[in-house]
Every structure is written in structure tokens, then in C-alpha cells.
């Protein structure tokens, strides 16, 4: 039996890499700088006091495509290392115990140069040798090595000539821009040699700055002042960073993207999974050294370590908030005003923060927006509805009666309310729905009841086919003739039977089976207001036909006020009565 090797088509591989692994051809610059930085780091291990630098230059001529030149005075490679590391895909010189000191991991970085160039020319001299080696690699997988008869200090130089059609990636402005983009905070100076030498990277990264300096840095960069800057650190993930508190409110389901660096090289500006989800009110600039990257080096590998880091970083933000609440500085009020919904979602999960913040959090009530402290000052009994729908049904009535009713329908609000007695044992929290609320309406006296008796009997008869129960009570505001209320079940029931009329036989029967057995048939309620003048007139009407028509019309009107689409039978009711009223009027 003979053994053979696959031939891997390198051109196809490069095509794959360039089209699928990397997001833009500009990454070739990142890969080149990265190799330089790793070479410098390796050299520093040999000579601690060595001052590493990276230099970049562009050669342009009117006749030839532009060429990029990049040099470093790092560790360099011996001939053997060149064979081993530059010429085998997937092989990296950065293996072994010291792996985490280096940025690169996959040994595919140099290949990204073939996205923009037909040839890589690399000249190198190792600190361990006097030989100067030239390596020329081509995208078809062939390469040549020769020893150069020349003097060179240890280090590596790379020449890349632009492929036709890729000249834009070799323009001085864009090269400077992208080198800065990826390598702004690298620990070694990166110089660009143009008409004069300029340093492209910063001397200090935001995560090394003090708060005020970090804020100024971000302001100079984005033109907007953040509310504050929170220092972040995680020992297990080797993370240091800054979380900027956004100056505007963000929706609670927004995912913030954070600018993340690994070994001070930009990984991505769109990493969202490094901070906890609830931290959507900050945007981070972070450097992480201890986390593993996916092959594209543009994301973190999802792992339990990442999860632990996320918790640790979340704790930094939490500690900051605790501190803020204790001091109650201007920043506290500013942040609360803008980011209360974020703080709410945090307080649901965290008892300490809950106790500190709950008094200052705003809630929607029947008497307008109020903080919990204001709400508490109204009394020890707190009423709330668990859905927005329920709140809408009765908030008008509650307001007219000066009853403070909280809308617990928004995210987290119900949960926050239910936790109240843990902090304030004197408080009693009660969930009300529209129907329990209307049970608190004032009952009629015996005499009044007699007065309403005939009317109520007619009303119940008339509305029974619509799964609606009627009652008469006294409530404010008296301008409201009737209040239509239903709970979640009745509302679902109504929607289901409305849809049943519209859909095909198969789904009509499915809805039937699902609803009939699955949902308790609950009646909606229509409560007439004894104090309303129209209702008063109706009690004393001796025309049963008129009574009937008005009851039906009030019912339909109440439905429309509550934005309930009418079923066919209800639509008929409306039409019939309209015609009736018109003809009565004309007959007179």
C-alpha cells in the first residue's frame, strides 16, 4: 500500500479565507502588525531592555502598482524557522506554554496578504544568527528561499506589492487610518515614514487612563460627552477596560457593541457578549488577554470562562452603581433620569441594588409618573395591574376616584413591585385586574337596586349571547355611562372567537378544540354607571325596545372605546340600531 498526500489548492483556500473568514481586505495590515508585535514581544523575552519599534512606508511610482513596506526590530527568523513557520498553513511559531503572550494563534495570518498581493517578500535575520534570509511566497503555494549577502540588524522586513484592483488598500491615508484603527493602543511605537516620521499609535490606552482623562479622550473622539466612565477589570480573563455611560436612553432590548482589544490589538468594535445583557446603558472599551478567539479573530469563543468574565465585569458596574446611590451626586440623578429602565432590570435580579435604588425609580400610575418614594408616601397599600391592557381599562376610573394605581405591565415593573415588602415590610402589595377593581365600585342601596332592576334584567338578557355580564354600580367619573372590562382569559376568548369567524374550517376547528377545553369561559363585564344621566333616563324609560337598543349601542360603543374589533354579530347590532334610531327620529 502506498501513501499519498492531498494537494490542497492554496488559491482556493485564500479565496475562502478572504471571502469568508475576514470581514475586509484591510485585515492584511492587522496581520502584518500583529506578526511584528509578536516578534517584538519574543525579543523582549530575550533582551528585556530592547526598545522595539515598527516602521511602515509606502512606495509609489507612476508606472508600477504601490508597494507597502513594513519592518520590525524583533526576534527575526532563522532559515529553519522560515521553512517551518512561514511555509506551513496552520503552523505557528507561537505555540507552547507561552502561547498567551502572543496575539496570533493559527498561522494563517500571513495568508491574508495574498488577498491584496501576488507575492510576499520577506527579509529576516534572527537574533540567534548572522544569516540574512530572503523568502518569496506566491499564492499558488510555491516559495523560494535565498541567503542574502548583506548586513542587517536582527528583525524582519516585508514588501508587498498591490495586486491589480487592490490599489485602494495601499493609499497612504487608508493605510495610516487602518493601522491606527487596529493598532492604536499597541505597546510598541508604530511609525509611518512619509514626508516626515509620524507616530500612528497612542502612548496610553483609555483603560490605563484616569476617569476624567478617559472621558476627555472619548469626547475628543466621538464629539459627545458620556455621563461617566466606569473602570472595569477582570482578573480571570485578564481584562481591563472602561465602560462609558451613554448620554442618551437606550431601549431595554438593545445590544450594545463594545470595542474590544486583545493584547492591545483591536479585535472588533462590535463585540456584544463581553458585558452582561443588562449593561445596555454603557459602551465599553476593553483589553482582554486571557480569552480565546475564534479563527477569524473577530469574536470570542463562547465558553464558561467568558461567562465568568462577564459576571466579574458586571460586578464592577454594580459596585459603581452602589457607590453612586450612596453618594447621590449630580451624576446619580443624571444617570437615573436617562437609564432608569436599565437599572430596573438590574434591580429585579440584585437585592442590594434593589434596596438602594427602588425609592428613586419612576413608575407609571393613574396619577401620572411617580417615583416609588412618592408612591409610598400615599399609603401602605399599593395596587397594581399586571398588564398594560388592564391598566388602560381602569386607569381613567382610578384617576377620577383619586386612587393611585400602578401600571405593572411594563417589563420588570410587576417583579419590582412584588419585591417591595422585602425592603419595606409595612407595605402591602395587591394585584388588581379590571374586574376586581370594578368590584370596589359603590353598590346600590336596596331602593336604587329596585329602580335599576328591570333595566338590569333586560341588559343581561340582551348581552348574554355576547358572553357579557351586566351590573349597575356607582362610580366616578359620572360622564362615563358604562365600563367594559375583561380579564386576560376573556380577552383571549374574544379574540379567538373573532378569528374563528374569519379563518378556514381546519383552523376554525383547531381553535375550537384549543379554546373550548383549554380556556375557562370567562365572561366580560359591562358595568353601567348609576350616576350617569343617560343611564338614569334609561331606568325610567317605559319603552323596552328603546332600552334594548340603547343597551346594545352602549355595549358596542364600550367595545370600540377599548379598541376591540367587532365580531360580525356585533357589527349587525350596530347597523340595526343605527337604522332603528334614524327611523324613530324620522317617525316623530
Amino acid at each position: 500500500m502506498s501513501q499519498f498526500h492531498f494537494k490542497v489548492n492554496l488559491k482556493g483556500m485564500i479565496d475562502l479565507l478572504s471571502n469568508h473568514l475576514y470581514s475586509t481586505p484591510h485585515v492584511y495590515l492587522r496581520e502584518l502588525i500583529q506578526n511584528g508585535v509578536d516578534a517584538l514581544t519574543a525579543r523582549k523575552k530575550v533582551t528585556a531592555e530592547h526598545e522595539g519599534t515598527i516602521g511602515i512606508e509606502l512606495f509609489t511610482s507612476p508606472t508600477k502598482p504601490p508597494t507597502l513596506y513594513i519592518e520590525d526590530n524583533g526576534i527575526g527568523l532563522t532559515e529553519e524557522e522560515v521553512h517551518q513557520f512561514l511555509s506551513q498553513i496552520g503552523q505557528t511559531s507561537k505555540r507552547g506554554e507561552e502561547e498567551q503572550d502572543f496575539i496570533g494563534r493559527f498561522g494563517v495570518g500571513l495568508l491574508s496578504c495574498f488577498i491584496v498581493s501576488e507575492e510576499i517578500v520577506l527579509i529576516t535575520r534572527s537574533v540567534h544568527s548572522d544569516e540574512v534570509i530572503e523568502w518569496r511566497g506566491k499564492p499558488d503555494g510555491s516559495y523560494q528561499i535565498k541567503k542574502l549577502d548583506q548586513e542587517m540588524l536582527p528583525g524582519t522586513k516585508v514588501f508587498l506589492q498591490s495586486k491589480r484592483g487592490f490599489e485602494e488598500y495601499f493609499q497612504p491615508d487608508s493605510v495610516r487610518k487602518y493601522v491606527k484603527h487596529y493598532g492604536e493602543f499597541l505597546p510598541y511605537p508604530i511609525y509611518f515614514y512619509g514626508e516626515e516620521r509620524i507616530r500612528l499609535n497612542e502612548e496610553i490606552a483609555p483603560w490605563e487612563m484616569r476617569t476624567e482623562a478617559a472621558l476627555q479622550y472619548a469626547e475628543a473622539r466621538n464629539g459627545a460627552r458620556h455621563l461617566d466612565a466606569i473602570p472595569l477589570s477582570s482578573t480571570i480573563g485578564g481584562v481591563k477596560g472602561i465602560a462609558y455611560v451613554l448620554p442618551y436612553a437606550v431601549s431595554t432590548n438593545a445590544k450594545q457593541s463594545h470595542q474590544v482589544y486583545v493584547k492591545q490589538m483591536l479585535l472588533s468594535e462590535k463585540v456584544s457578549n463581553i458585558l452582561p445583557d443588562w449593561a445596555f446603558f454603557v459602551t465599553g472599551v476593553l483589553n482582554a488577554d486571557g480569552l480565546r478567539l475564534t479563527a477569524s479573530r473577530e469574536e470570542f469563543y463562547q465558553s464558561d470562562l467568558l461567562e465568568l468574565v462577564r459576571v466579574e465585569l458586571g460586578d464592577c458596574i454594580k459596585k459603581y452603581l452602589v457607590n453612586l446611590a450612596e453618594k447621590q451626586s449630580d451624576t446619580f440623578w443624571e444617570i437615573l433620569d436617562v437609564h432608569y429602565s436599565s437599572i430596573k432590570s438590574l434591580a429585579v435580579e440584585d437585592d442590594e441594588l434593589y434596596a438602594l435604588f427602588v425609592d428613586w425609580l419612576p413608575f407609571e400610575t393613574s396619577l401620572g409618573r411617580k417615583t416609588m418614594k412618592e408612591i409610598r408616601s400615599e399609603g401602605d397599600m399599593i395596587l397594581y395591574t399586571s398588564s398594560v391592557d388592564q391598566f388602560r381599562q381602569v386607569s381613567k376610573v382610578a384617576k377620577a376616584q383619586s386612587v393611585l394605581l400602578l401600571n405593572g405591565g411594563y417589563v420588570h415593573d410587576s417583579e419590582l413591585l412584588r419585591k417591595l415588602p422585602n425592603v419595606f415590610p409595612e407595605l402591602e402589595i395587591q394585584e388588581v385586574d379590571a374586574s376586581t377593581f370594578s368590584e370596589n365600585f359603590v353598590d346600590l342601596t336596596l331602593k336604587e337596586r329596585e329602580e335599576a332592576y328591570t333595566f338590569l334584567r333586560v341588559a343581561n338578557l340582551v348581552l348574554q349571547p355576547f358572553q357579557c355580564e351586566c351590573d349597575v354600580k356607582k362610580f366616578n367619573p359620572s360622564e362615563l355611562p358604562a365600563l367594559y372590562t375583561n380579564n386576560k382569559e376573556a380577552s383571549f376568548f374574544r379574540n379567538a372567537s373573532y378569528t374563528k369567524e374569519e379563518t378556514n374550517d381546519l383552523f376554525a376547528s383547531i381553535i375550537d378544540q384549543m379554546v373550548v377545553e383549554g380556556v375557562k369561559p370567562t365572561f366580560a363585564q359591562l358595568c353601567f354607571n348609576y350616576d350617569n344621566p343617560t343611564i338614569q333616563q334609561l331606568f325610567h324609560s317605559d319603552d323596552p325596545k328603546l332600552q334594548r337598543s340603547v343597551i346594545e349601542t352602549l355595549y358596542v360603543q364600550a367595545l370600540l372605546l377599548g379598541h376591540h374589533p367587532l365580531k360580525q354579530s356585533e357589527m349587525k347590532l350596530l347597523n340595526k340600531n343605527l337604522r332603528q334610531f334614524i327611523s324613530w327620529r324620522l317617525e316623530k
Partner: protein
Amino acid sequence: MMDYQKLLRQAASLPDGDAKLTLMEEAIRMLDSLQEVDNAFYERMNYINIAVFLGRGEKAIVAFAWCLAQYDKEPGRFVSHNIMWTYKWIAEHIQRFPQISVEKVEETLADLKRRYQELGYKLRPYYWQKRKFAFERGDLEEAEKYFQLWMEEPRDRMSDCRACERDHQVSYYLEKDLHRAEDLAKSLFQGWEGCRTVPSTTYADFLLPTLQAGKVELAWQYYQTGYPLIRGEKGFIPSVAKHIQFLTVVDKEEAAILLQRHLPEALSLYEKDCQFQFFLAASILFEEIGEYQHTLNIPDHVTYEWLTNEVESIAKKFDGRNGNDGYQKKIIEVREKLEACRKMVKPR
């Protein structure tokens, strides 16, 4: 701005949950009364999309029934791709209600098949649903047949996403060949493939089989990586149930915390199948924590007796519908699995 637009805008600012659905329902009611058919259709489709992932099948089914009727009423007015894509979900959720008869589920699947064929889509999703329904009813022969048909049918744009299909395969091997399942799941766990539900659910699926195989550390890793993905999400009750089962064996106190955290959602569900899994996990946990259960912060009516009653009665309903004792068997199986897992864990 119209009222319904205001509501929709408010809804858009909320994370997926009941509050969001309620606001959208109100907006849709308004659109219906205004007879804005196009908007009502598209908002319902959005609504279904959210409701399905929240485990609110009953709401999604009703909304879908309306959309399908509109779609049939005026062919060509609405793009078929979206509604046919949604139909897959509906066909799956219909199975989770014991009150919906086997005949109706089969009729729905046949209707789905007919429509896919008419529109030139491959039957891959249909075969998967057939396999799923057969499997849930305990008809393993039928389930196997449709699994093979599913594997043979080519993919097209109506097929489930790659991550989901990978997960389907994983679930097939999980009970019979853990090693193979692990191999298949690698690309999911390494983050190469993923979607809204996968690998969040995949981690949960691996917990007990891994623990049962004696790989305690690995099971812990699955828990530590997988649970945070669903901790703050709604619509993952069956997966939460699996995490609770795992913790019941290895860390009862943590199990009780999960129970308290997710119980309100489980109680609010109509999908009985999801409730069954959660209540079963909860009832077994209650046996373990004994007296301590009274210190839990949960509604008073949720007691051990109540939970076991619910589990029994849901099982009866499903078994009644399916004409066998598959759900009764599931109760026994879960208990046996947990027993086997306990043997793998040294007492702390």
C-alpha cells in the same frame, strides 16, 4: 401619529415578553377595526414570530389562523414564503396542546405538505414535523421512518436553519450514541453555527445524558455555559426543566433558585407539554428538598401535591389523545434517569 403606531413603537422598545405581546395585540385590534388588512397582516406576522419563541403557541395559532385566511382569500396579495415559513412553527406548536386531537394535527401536517408541494418547496420540514409528532407520541417506528426521509430530502430555502438541523441530528443521537452526538454538536458549541434557540437548548439536552455517562465535569460545563444563555430569556421552559433536573442531582439549592425564578413563567403557559416537563422536574425536586420547600418564595397553591396532580393530569390528557401511555412512561423514565445520574455523583 396614529394610536396604533404609538403602541407599536412602545412595543418595539420592549424586550420580547408578555408586555410586548399585549401592546401588539391592542395595536392589531385597532388595525382590525380600521380594516387595515395589510398592516394587520404584517403586524400579526411579527407578533407570531415573537409569540412562538416565547412559548405562546395559543396566541400564535390564533393570529396565524387569521393570516392564513387572508392569504387564501387573495392569492398573490401576500408573499407566500413568510407565511409558509411560519406555518412550520404553527404545525409544531399545535402538537403541544393535548386538547387538539391527533386527527387535527395530522390534518394540519397534511395541509402543510400539500401547500409546500404546490409551491415547489422540498418536504424536509414536513418530514421533520412528522418525525417529531410520531416521536412525542411514542411511535418509534414511524419516527425512524420520517427521520430517514428527512435525512434524504435535499435542503432548500424552506428548510430549518443549519444550526437547527444540526441540533435535530444531535437530538436523534443523544440517547443512542452520546459520542456521535458530541461530535455533531461540536460546531454548535464552538460557535460556528447558531441561531436564536441553538445552542441554548442543545446545552440543556446534553446535561442528563452526559451526567449519566459519568462525565460530571463536562456536564457542569454545559450547565455553566448553557444556563446563562437562557437565564433572562422567556420561552425556554423545557430547557430550564432540564437544568433543574441536572441541579436536583448535583446542587439542590441552586435547583430551588432556578425553580423560583422560572415558575411564574411556567405557570402562565397554556402549552401543556412545556408545563408537563417543568412541573415534573419541580415535583421531583420537591421530594428532594422536603421540609425546606416551605421556605421557597412561590405562590401558596404550588405544593408537592399540586405539582404531582398537574403532572398526572397533563399526562393523562396527552395519553388520552394519543391512545397510549407514552407520557406515563416519560414520568418513569425521567425518574430512572435521575436515579442513574445520582450514582455517578459522589455525595458532597
